[in-house]
C-alpha cells in the first residue's frame, strides 16, 4: 500500500514538474517580445548595433590634408604576434641636407590579424586605430593584404617649439 502511494506521489510530482516547465515555455510563447535579443542582421545593415569600441580592421588615421602621424618606428610591427604588419620605410633627404627615415608603405595583412589590439597599444604616436567594421570576408585572399597609407600622404609636421628666450 505504501509502495503504491509513493508511486502515485512520484507520478503526480512528475506531471507537476513537467507542467511547471511548460508553463515557462507557454509564457514566452504568448509574450515573445520579452525574450527577443536577436537582430535582423542583413536587414539592419544601415543601422547596425555594433559598439564603438568593437575591435575590427586596423586603419591609419589621415586628416583632411592627407597627413598621417606614422613615423615608421616599427614598434607596432614588433608588437604584433602574427607578423600581420609590415612597415616599409625609405630614406629621403630633407631641405637642409639631412637624411631622414619616412614611411613608404604600411602593409597590413588582414588575413593574419587576430584583432588583439597590441599594435594600437604599442603605437607612441596614436597613428593607428581600429574601426568597428566586421564584414571582412572576400573571395580573393590577395585583396586582404592592404596598404594603409593613402597615396601622396605625408607625415604630419609637429608644431615647432620656439626656444625660450632667457631674460
Amino acid at each position: 500500500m505504501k509502495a503504491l502511494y509513493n508511486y502515485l506521489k512520484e507520478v503526480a510530482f512528475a506531471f507537476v514538474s513537467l507542467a511547471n516547465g511548460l508553463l515557462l515555455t507557454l509564457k514566452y510563447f504568448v509574450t515573445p517580445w520579452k525574450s527577443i535579443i536577436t537582430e535582423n542582421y542583413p536587414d539592419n545593415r544601415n543601422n547596425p548595433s555594433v559598439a564603438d569600441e568593437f575591435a575590427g580592421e586596423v586603419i591609419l588615421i589621415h586628416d583632411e590634408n592627407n597627413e598621417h602621424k606614422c613615423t615608421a618606428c616599427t614598434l607596432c610591427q614588433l608588437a604584433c604576434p602574427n607578423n600581420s604588419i609590415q612597415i616599409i620605410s625609405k630614406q629621403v633627404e630633407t631641405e637642409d641636407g639631412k637624411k631622414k627615415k619616412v614611411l613608404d608603405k604600411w602593409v597590413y595583412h588582414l588575413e593574419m590579424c587576430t584583432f588583439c589590439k597590441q599594435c594600437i597599444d604599442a603605437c607612441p604616436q596614436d597613428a593607428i586605430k581600429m574601426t568597428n567594421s566586421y564584414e571582412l570576408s572576400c573571395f580573393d585572399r590577395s585583396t586582404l593584404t592592404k596598404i594603409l597609407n593613402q597615396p601622396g600622404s605625408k607625415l604630419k609636421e609637429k608644431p615647432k617649439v620656439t626656444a625660450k628666450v632667457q631674460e
Partner: protein
Amino acid sequence: MENPIVTPSELKTEEFVVNIGPQHPATHGVLRVEATLDGEIIKDVLPHLGYIHRGIEKMTESLGYKQSIFLTSRMDYLSAHINNHLCALAIEKAAQIEVPARAKAIRIIMDELQRLTSHELWWGSCAMDIGAVTPFFLAFRDRERILELFEQNTGNRLTMSYIIPGGVMNDIRPDFVPKLKELIKSIKDYRKEYDQLITGNFIFQHRTQGIGILSKEQAISLGCTGPTARASGLSCDIRKLYPYDGYEKLDFKEVIDYGCDNWARYVVRMEEMNQSIHIIEQLLDNMPTGEYRTKLKGVLKLPAGEYYQRVESARGELGVYIVSDGGAKPYRMKFRTPCYSNLGAVKPISVGMKIADLMANMATIDLVIPDMDR
C-alpha cells in the same frame, strides 16, 4: 550440408566498440571517445585527444611575454578573461609589477562575468545533452547580454585579450556600472527561470541523481578540480585557498556538495552562479577610481628563474609554469589546464553505467576540448 542449430544456452554476446566523435554534437568539440559496450552497459571508455592540438605552449616560446597573452584566450575560449588573467598574474609576479586598485576590481568583475557566461552556456548544453532543447535558447539569450557588455568595454566578444600585465587594456566605459547593475537584476530573475525549467524537472532529476559517482578519493587521485571535485566534497577553490587580486577581501562562499553524482555537480555550478553575482555586487558599489594600468616597457623581460601561478577558472584550477632565462621570450611555458585532468574522471564514473549516461557524465564534467589539447 547440415544446418547448425544454435540452442539459446550456446548464444554468446560480444563486446562492441562504439566511436563517439570526433564530430559528435554531444562532445562539444573534436574529442573522440572509444566506448566498449556489452549490450548497453559500458565496459571501457578511452578518450582520444589531439584533434585540435595547436602547439600553443611551443608557440609562446617564439613570442614575447606580452604577445603570448593573446594565445591563452584560445585555450579555454569560454573563460578567456580568466586565462588572460592567469598569464598576466604570473608575469606580474615575476617582474614585480604593481597593479592599480581599479584594474584589480575590473579584473575580478570580468572574471566573474566570464564565469557566469561559462556556467550559463554549460547549463544550456548540459540540458541539451540530456534531452531538453528549450534551455539552450534561454541560456544563449542570457549569455548574449553579457557578451554585449564585453563587446562594448573590451572590444571583443569571445577572445578578448583584455587583461594584460600591468592592468587592463583600456578603461571601462562610464555607463558600464549602471548597465551591469541593470543586467544583474535581470540575471537574478533568469536564475529563477532556470530552476523552474530544469532543476525541478522530474526527468532531469532521474537522469542525474545517483548517476556518475565520483568519490572524493578518486577525485583527489585523478587531479580533478573545480566544480567537478567540489561536488565530491573536496575543497579546492583557488580563490579561497590562494587568493589573488583582492579575492581575500570579498565575501563569498566556497560551494561544496557531498553528493558525488551528476546532480551534485549540477547543484554546485548553479550555486556558483549565485556566488558570482554576489561577488560582482560587492565590487560595483565601491569601484576604486584612478589609474587602470601601469605603463610597462615595450619589451618585457623577466628575471631568470621559474614561476608558477594558479587561478580558479570556470572549470577548475588553471596553472601556468614559466621558465625564464632572462630574455625577452619565455624558455618554457607550461599550462596546467583543468579539463585535461577532469577528462580522466570520465572513465571511472561511466564504467558499469548505461551508454546514455555517458553523455550526461561528460556534460556535467563540462569539457572544453581546446583546453585539453592546447
